[in-house]
């Protein structure tokens, strides 16, 4: 055990920082369920709760990147499951636009994700976080503005 933890300390100390915007009804509940079922995932994510993924202004995503987030997730209810009927459709449209925009500004597409996570999908929430952390570890830290 001791050897393992030392080995870990020797690795480059890059811990990706992820901001996840989760809708109250599905994806935030999914994140809670990951906890209730004691699924383990890396502690790199900070969740900002919003009532609907449709509340997530593209400006929030840009703000997160500008403040040094290595990855941003916008998570909502599955298509047709939206608690507010179709807020997530707006999220999907904005997500497509944002992805294109971010790529043009030189931010790798892996750094921004729109995910549909149901209240019953604790597994999926954990999987998304694990997947993103592993992707970001490969990519390395985001290039800082002006750097």
């Amino acid at each position, binding site marked *: 055990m001791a050897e393992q933890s030392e080995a870990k300390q020797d690795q480059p*100390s890059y811990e990706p*920082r992820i*901001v996840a915007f989760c809708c*109250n009804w599905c994806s*935030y*509940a999914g*994140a*809670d369920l*990951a*906890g*209730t*079922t*004691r*699924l*383990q*995932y*890396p*502690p790199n994510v*900070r*969740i*900002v*709760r*919003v*009532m*609907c993924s*449709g*509340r*997530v*202004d*593209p*400006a*929030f995503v840009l*703000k*997160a990147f500008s*403040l*040094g*987030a290595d990855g941003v997730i916008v998570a909502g209810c599955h298509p047709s499951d939206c*608690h*507010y*009927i*179709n*807020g997530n459709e*707006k999220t999907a449209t*904005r997500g497509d636009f944002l992805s294109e925009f971010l790529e043009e500004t030189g931010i790798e597409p892996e750094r921004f994700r729109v995910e549909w996570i149901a209240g*019953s999908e604790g597994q999926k929430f*954990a999987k998304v976080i694990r997947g993103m952390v592993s992707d970001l570890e490969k990519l390395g830290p985001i290039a800082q503005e002006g750097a």
Partner: protein
Amino acid sequence: MSENKFVGAVLVVGGGPAGMQAALDLADSGFKVYLLETTPSIGGTMSQLDKTFPTNDCSMCILSPKLVATGRHENITMLTHSELKKVEGQAGNFKVTLTRYSRYIDEEKCTGCGVCAEPCPIEGSSAFDRDLAPAKAIYVPFPQAVPLIYTIDRGLCIGCGICEKFCEAEAIKYDMDPDIEETIDVGAIILAPGYDVYNSSKKVMYGHGTFPNVLSNIEFERMLSASGPTEGHVIRPSDGDVPKKIAFIQCVGSRDAQTPNTYCSSYCCMAALKQAVIAQEHVPGLKTTIFFMDTRAFGKEFEEYLHRAENEYGVRMFRNNRISKVQEDPGTSDLMLSFIDGADIDEEPFDLVVLASGATPPESSKALAKSLGMNMNKFGFCETDELAPVDTSVPGIYVCGAFSGPKDIPDSVAQASGAAGKAAALLADERGTLVTKKEYPEEKDVTDKEPRIGVFVCHCGINIGSVVDVPMVMEYASRLPGVVYAEANLYTCSQDTQKKIKEMIDEHDLNRVVVASCTPRTHEPLFQNTVREAGLNKYLFEMANIRDQCSWVHRLEPKAATEKAKALVRMAVAKASMLEPLPQPKIPVTPAALVIGGGLSGMTAALEIAKAGYEVHLVEKEKELGGHMKRIHHTLAGVNPQETLAKLNKDLQDHKNITIHLGETVEEVRGYIGNFESTLKGGEEIKHGTVVVASGAVEYEPKEYLCGQHPKVIKQTDLGDMLANGKLDAKTVAIIQCVGSRNEEHPNCSRICCSMAMANALKIREEHPETSVYILFRDIRTFGFAEENYNEAARQGVTFLRYDPEAPPRVRADGDSLVVEVDEQFIEETITIRPDYVVLNAAVHPNPDNKDLAQKLKVPQNKEGFFLEAHMKLRPVDFATDGIFLCGLAHSPRLIDESISQALAAAAKVNTVLSKPFIEAEGVVSVVDEDKCIGCGRCEEICEYGAPRLEEVSPGVFKSKVNEALCKGCGSCVVECCSRAIRSKHFRSDQIITMIEAALADDDEEREAKA
């Protein structure tokens, strides 16, 4: 007080989920409630469960807010650790004598801190943990207990006096009177004492109590619980090893003629499936096997759960198995089971065996029956009638939950609301006479005041505290900008902490509060109420989720979890400093209800609402009321319900509060809780405060088995008609089960068909003894007391043939006659029948009209097309949308008594709304800044709720305005608005951005630590 004066108070006996629900519904609709509970805490059996099926929700997580809501309700007086002694009087006016057993603790002084229990030298065993864990002589049954007051077990206590020395509150009173008699006056009594778990040791062949590795289901449930005796670790009690193979033996003390319990306990099959799934999640590589007689997954979405267990989790299932005995290898303590596999008998060893111990009447039932003078059924449960499922034999005394027969939580909760509805109707004239109105202190004005934030960090027992360094997080919080006070609590949700929070708000003049604990989804309302009681607007509260989204998911990384918890608290504090008080407009209530659907459920709900004193509009699309009930000629008990239906119809026609709209449908529904306006197809406009959806279901029209092609292939309902008209002429009848249910397209069970098959088969055997009856089935699902009908059918010579869904029976025409071939699954032989009639037990399918209705009401349906309730366990008749309720077949397939229970429940829920002059709206809504608005109309275009509307403010100038009562607060319009004129209250852009900044802010200490 005169003898005949009715009393506006109700006694509820039993504090489990059913008793709590009945108490809350009555207290919310203007009645004083006394909640009597024998044990020191409310919560019932549900508080002992780890998870609940079919959603795998954490039981305590969903129960805890209910416990607290009950405990803190101003109209509920809790009488825990007490017992009912004597009841005199009659409906409307009972005098009840009870004994309040002494806790030897001053209930007013005890804070529940637990300092007394630590030094107590006595170790007994915890009844709550089924004797698997130690308990002190001074104890609370479980950490979330309500009321959180300690109790001294005088049987264990040696009177050493140590606890008294440690108790700073001076609450311990050895010399207290052992028990006190009290009398109370109530108008009605609701019995919800629950059930006892069958003592499996009585079935000596299973070795429970002898072989250490044989556990009962409730013991295993405690073992699975993170707060249980093994902290959620699945182990073999004999050696502490982690089991690799677990066997579940079903029907222990149920469906068992060797015991008095020949009924089915209804919940054990699902409980075993759940335990197998959860155990496999706890122990990687664990193999579970369940030995069923039949798989009884008959409830809403239960069959899908069974499929997942079998196919996704690989739970091995053997049907047609009643395990005869368990043998132990004395060397290894392994357990050997022999079982039936097809036509063979196999033998296999297991590491652990879990017995599905059934439900028995509660120990108190005999004494209760005697003191109340009411009838019990032959098993010792409370006797009820299928057509009056919440009535006991004594007027004014109602029953709910497992005391009237084994049932699961949602059915208990629905029945509880139903009982509450009945009691409310009986005492309608006394509503509001004995209650105190919830008064909140005037809100402190915090505008222009610097934030003074208080942070409360929760240990949640060991849930947070064993991973996250709570004292460190608390200390960190205390240094954040704006924070003037921080403390850590063992359980921030406990009642004593609520008191503490209020005290600290006063003492430190706090104007914002942050709680770092579990999820706002379950606990925010509780804390919001607390800050409100201390004079703060409820929106001056923020939560940091450091349990579900931190300590539970980063258990092996305590350091990183602590850093994350600090970040989450930092984010919450940042937002808190920007919170503003939000007004909650008071919305007046139209005291009327719209009931959609005039079948049994709709009719029952309508009458009960009318009896409670409110106007009702009952809308039925057919030309007459009655729905499916019109075609039911005999119930399970053999009663013809037509007389009851006719009386119900007449009562409805005669009632002054009811308007019946026949041949009508709802064209449009506008508005919101308290203020709906609906238009019927005929053009009539109705104003109402609530909606009850009772739109029923349809009988499947089978396409299989030559149905519609051969005149002698008929449906179960046709058979019922023939029997009622005396027109059955047959030597042989073959009934095929599961037609149109439990298949790919309709995966779930239709619940009622097995019982209906028994009712019809028995009727045939009774009236046509010369007729042979075959029932071709997959699993017989006569749950509860309907099992008696199954047993009787077998006694009456009905032949049961089990078929495999992979090889269903083959029906072919042989000229005018029919030939049925069935591959019997367990004798592994093909049997040929030449019946005169093939009767198809066609499924209950969702009403195709549901989709349209769902859109009009903006309420959800499940995958199958039934309406989806707000919560599958604890809110079975509520929609997520306030003011709209559901009952009967619109919810899911159910039996007559179950539909009536739900209909009464929906009526009770309607009462909780209509009994109030106004409702408080939520404050989280969008608001338009008129100066910025350019009147483009984009917001109006995208809002599904019609909340923003363009108004012409001056000639040619349009501005958007949001109707606060219609706005659901999603905030989509804020993002769509091109002129940034819309603000989403409580989720303002600046508030969200400050959280992003806090999330990404480098913590100084982090940097120092790294350097």
